[in-house]
């Protein structure tokens, strides 16, 4: 997805200005001439200036669409892949503490293998092996407390 310079520039100006305005609400540091607002204000102003430069170059190059969709937009398979990767991550983050690492990671991997076209009969074997391997590496070797969730009863 490519943004046209004018549109991107407008976005930067808005974000930059919002930061500068928000930074004005920061209280000054007592006894110092520089408060916590200075640094964000300078960066926000810098971003807004960059935005103006983008708007300028965008206006000179007329006829470019505001938003140019990525070339994979015409390939349904790719759209599905994109959505699956993002949705799968959200699924993991929402479910892992309740369902536990083993079940969540297994489903997480199986969905991705399926989306990326791994042969179906291999998926259960692969997903199981990777889940167990990852659990061994992080839980056993690196002592990361991966959640057990529903499998709390068999925790080791």
């Amino acid at each position, binding site marked *: *997805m*490519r943004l046209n310079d004018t549109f*991107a520039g407008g976005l*930067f100006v808005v974000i*930059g200005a919002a*930061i500068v305005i*928000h*930074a004005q609400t*920061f*209280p000054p*540091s007592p006894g*110092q*001439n*520089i*408060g*916590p607002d200075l*640094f*964000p204000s300078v*960066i*926000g102003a*810098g*971003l807004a200036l*960059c935005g103006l*430069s*983008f708007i300028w170059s965008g206006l000179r190059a007329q006829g470019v669409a505001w938003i140019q969709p*990525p070339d*994979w937009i015409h*390939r349904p398979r*790719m759209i599905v*892949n*994109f959505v699956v*990767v*993002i949705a*799968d*991550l*959200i699924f*993991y*983050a929402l479910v*892992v*503490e309740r369902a536990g690492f083993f079940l969540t*990671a297994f489903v*997480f*991997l199986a969905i*991705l*293998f399926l*989306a*990326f*076209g*791994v042969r179906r009969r291999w998926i259960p074997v*692969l997903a199981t092996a*990777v*889940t167990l391997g*990852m659990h061994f*590496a*992080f839980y056993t*070797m*690196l002592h*990361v*407390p*991966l959640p057990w969730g529903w499998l709390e009863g068999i925790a080791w």
Partner: protein
Amino acid sequence: MEHVIQAFGLVFTPHVIGVVLASALFGLFVGSIPGLTATMATALLVPVTFVMDPVPAIACMATATAMAIFAGDIPGALLRMPGTPASAAYCDEAYAMTRNGEAEKVLGAGLVFSVIGGLFGVIVLVTTAPALAEVALKFSSFEYFWLVLLGLTCAVFIAPGRPVKGLVSLCLGLLIATIGFENPAAYPRFTFGSEQLMSGLQLTPVMIGMFALSEVIRYAVSRDLPIEPLKQGIGRIFHGQWALVKQYKMPVLRGSVLGTIVGALPGTGADIAAWISYGLSKRFSKTPEKFGTGHVEGIIESGAANNSALASAWIPALVFGIPGDSITAIVIGVLYLKGMNPGPTIFIENPQNIYAVFIVFFLANLLMLPLGWLAIKAAKNVLRVPRSVLMPIILLFCVVGSFAINNSIFDIGVMLVFGLLAYFMEANDFPIAPTILGLVLGGMLEQNFVTSMIKADGNFGAFFARPIAGTLGVATLLVWLSPLVLRWIRSRRWPEVARGS
């Protein structure tokens, strides 16, 4: 001297040697697979280094990246797909050599000259870093402020493409660095009432998102080109390499020197070194017409350049805490976690650890010869590992690795957001490195500015009052003004060209 002996003791233990060998194999594997980069390897290694002592943790990253940058040449030569961005500059040239039946020669040259360039960079690192540290001991907040600003400036202006895009990317990184209450005024900024944002964003999930998740997304939306199995076997790769060394002494030296300089500049790493070096090689070559038809000269020069850049990027990272490239930006985070705060005092407080890091660098570059030979021999099989299987595993690694830093689900969200951000930034040709540098250095920039202003009682002239600070300040301002000056000179000399452009 006793520190050097201590350092040898720290490195030559079964544990550290085991870590070095394992991370070497990991680096070779990651480098050989197109779509997996050396920076990604480093980002994914951060959670793994958590439980390690400082020396093996750093050894792990130094070795893996050196190997990955070399291994990136392998698929470039065999499949015309660079394994890491650092091999992209001469990928077509290398593939042309393979098509001419010179696969052994180009792979061997990639390996031998990677080792030579790498060793050159390491020697410069070992000799200059301690000397620079002596000088840096005298630096105050004024010098550090300018040094950080100069570093950020270099990152913006040396990156390929329009500087204004680099500047936006830098602003983004600096803004993210302001989140939380860890600022001179200890006032919570941009936290919007979120407790997780109080201490700012964790660097590791941001890095994993920007360098690993973005790569997985890119894979997900691109057609998975079937990798053609290699037909011919690969024979004696070292045959005739010595003759090449003798024939191309100057290009090797030029590539190594240029790579070392580019690597030491903040924000520019092995990939940019390789591009510049390949261009220079063509310009200075006696036979520039052969470039593009399968000529080894440019590969030798830029192959040496990218590996030498890798080592020299550690010079500013260790001495000033200013990363030379994206990889050392990650390494600096790890150094802090391990209590080895980068800066000139590290050479006084922890000399044995620093010497140990140096020894590991030599070791990694020497190990590259036998292990690289193995990797080339195994390339046929490694390249057959389907990416449809690898990418989901990497994604799970991203998730678990982000979680592992704080055992927090929030960090998985951070990783997701920054992965998407990096994906969209790259789709719009915004460089990623300035964001990372801004994020790593933002706090340091503000801290040194505020400290200096308090010392100077609000008088900005003090920033130019000390000799080194003044020089750095003028240099920084000159780099900022350079585009305007160049435009002015052009308009004076060639008014019609300036108007035309």
